[in-house]
């Protein structure tokens, strides 16, 4: 607030129109328009659609809570998809964060060729898409895939991976580890921002390298870990491409991820009303998990200052 604005206010006159007070709106208008057209309007429209039966023909027909009733009480596949997604999330997110953290710690050690190693770990996360999904489908082929071939060299008979009900989700978790590079780079940046004097102080106090990790590195990194955890959980709920192109939900719904199930309802069967209900349930779940993490974060995340 400028003092002149306050002064005119005190004088009881309307503040004079000043272009500078409004031009900011002009700069953010592209985003604001998009927020309205592709954000706010669709957000409430999908809430409305979730109470209707709408198959793209004719007008949406209001059916009250019927979609939600059907979803919770008459649709076992909804529960399967939720379970599959949660199972994947619980397996993939913590393991991915630990792998990324260990790699970042090692890359942050005083080593030669750091840039080379960083490149090696980071590159796969950039190429993640349909092509690498097919690549992994081949690598994890139980009979002629490279993974089971390598396992057979050390005398292990590899599992059926994507063709097995038990191993399909772990196979996708394995694929997700290949993409931890982005998180490694985030952690590496975080590690390099930890003030050196804290380590020196810990060393003077006689802390071992393990003690320094536990009492300096991890607390100082906790905001970054928290950020990657929240985004990782949200990302794991978005799992779609691999499940769609590699397993298409199979075998026997073992990889029927939530978004895949939603996609089938929306764009294969055109049950737009029911798919909207699925989308809103997803929204509430993701929001709940994120708020839950935020609430718990006070206990372990350390914010400096």
């Amino acid at each position, binding site marked *: 607030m400028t003092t002149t604005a306050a002064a005119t206010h005190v004088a009881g006159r309307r503040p004079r129109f000043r272009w500078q*007070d409004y031009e*900011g*709106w002009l*700069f*953010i208008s*592209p*985003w604001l328009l*998009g*927020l309205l*057209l*592709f*954000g706010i309007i*669709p*957000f409430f429209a999908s809430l409305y*659609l979730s109470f209707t039966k709408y198959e*793209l023909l004719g007008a949406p027909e209001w059916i009250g809570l019927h979609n939600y009733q059907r979803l919770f009480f008459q649709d076992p596949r909804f529960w399967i998809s939720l379970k599959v997604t949660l199972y994947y999330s619980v397996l993939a997110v913590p393991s991915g964060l630990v792998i990324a953290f260990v*790699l970042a710690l*090692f890359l942050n050690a005083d*080593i030669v060729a750091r840039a080379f190693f960083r*490149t090696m770990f*980071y*590159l*796969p996360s*950039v*190429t993640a*898409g*349909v*092509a690498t999904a*097919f*690549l992994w489908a*081949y*690598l994890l082929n139980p009979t*002629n895939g490279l993974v089971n071939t390598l396992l057979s060299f050390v005398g292990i008979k590899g599992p059926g991976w994507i063709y097995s009900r038990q191993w399909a989700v772990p196979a996708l978790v394995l694929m997700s580890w290949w993409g931890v*590079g*982005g998180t490694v780079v*985030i952690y*590496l*940046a*975080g590690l390099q921002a930890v003030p050196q004097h804290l380590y020196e102080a810990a060393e003077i106090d006689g802390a071992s*390298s393990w003690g320094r990790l536990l009492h300096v590195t991890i607390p100082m990194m906790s*905001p970054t870990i928290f950020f*990657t955890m*929240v985004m990782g959980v*949200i990302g794991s*709920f*978005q799992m779609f*491409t691999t499940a*769609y192109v590699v397993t298409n939900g199979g075998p026997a719904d073992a990889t029927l991820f939530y978004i895949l199930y*939603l996609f089938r309802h*929306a*764009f294969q069967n055109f049950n737009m009303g029911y*798919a*909207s209900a699925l*989308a*809103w349930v*997803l*929204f509430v779940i*993701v*929001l709940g998990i*994120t708020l839950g993490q935020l609430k718990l974060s006070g206990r372990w995340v350390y914010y400096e200052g």
Partner: protein
Amino acid sequence: MRVDSGVQTAAVRQHPAVRWRASIRFWKSKTAGRRVGLAFIYAVLIVGSIAFALPFYWMIATSFKTKMEAVMYPPKWVPIPIHFTGYERMWTAFPFARFLTNTCFITITTMIGFILTSTLVGYGFARTKFKGRDALFLVLLATMMLPPQVTMIPTFIIFRALGWINTYYPLIVPAFIGGSAFYIFLMRQFIMTLPRELDDAARIDGCNSFRIYWNILMPLSKPAIATIAVFSFVGEWNDFMGPLIYLQSQEKMTIAVGLRLFVGQFSTDLPAMMAGSFVTVLPLIVIFFLAQNYFVQGIALTGLKQ
């Protein structure tokens, strides 16, 4: 100017030979326990990077094999003699050149859109003052956490009503109207780091806000713009659900959905499948090596100072 011989410049320190000698000295200065620790770190990093590189190697190696060689046991580690038959089958069975052209068109157009929206809006949030700005910025951050599926269905219905199914508009227009919350956030963070004195000086010289944005801050924001360019390139190149939902005819398809169609019909032809996959990821690998620092900077900018 002569460099003092006692002080190593950053450039000298970066030299591999110098770093190698420095690390030997470092190694010798360590106690036995530390050496074991370092050896362990190197072992993990070397084994890990081989494991991370092996899938790429296998993709490339398989693409140069014959169908028979691809399923041999024990596997053929080096594809000699090299066969290009996989590439021939891939290239003739499906219009991959068309897919690549389409993907390039979408990728470059959306990139321009994302750069324009993120710099304009980022400037708005970083430099202009208006009522409700900080609240709107929180809204922007919140939209990053919103699962896109919540808005996907009505958005599809809107685009369908506009007659935009099987056109590129649904993929391109949102980059210009709306942009990406993440890129806007990145740009805003970057512009905040530029000294405000530049704006003040320009304003005294008679520049309006738009000229400060266009003539002063845009040129200074080249690193951040490059970061957004490479991120959006990778994002659009890999995008699967968008083209899957909106594009129907084969001649409109992008490489991602085209590849899936191809693999659906050639699922037993491993060399052709890997050839197609390699052609798809090759531009990404090239961009990555050309612009690696921009990726790293951008990603570092997101993780810090939330």
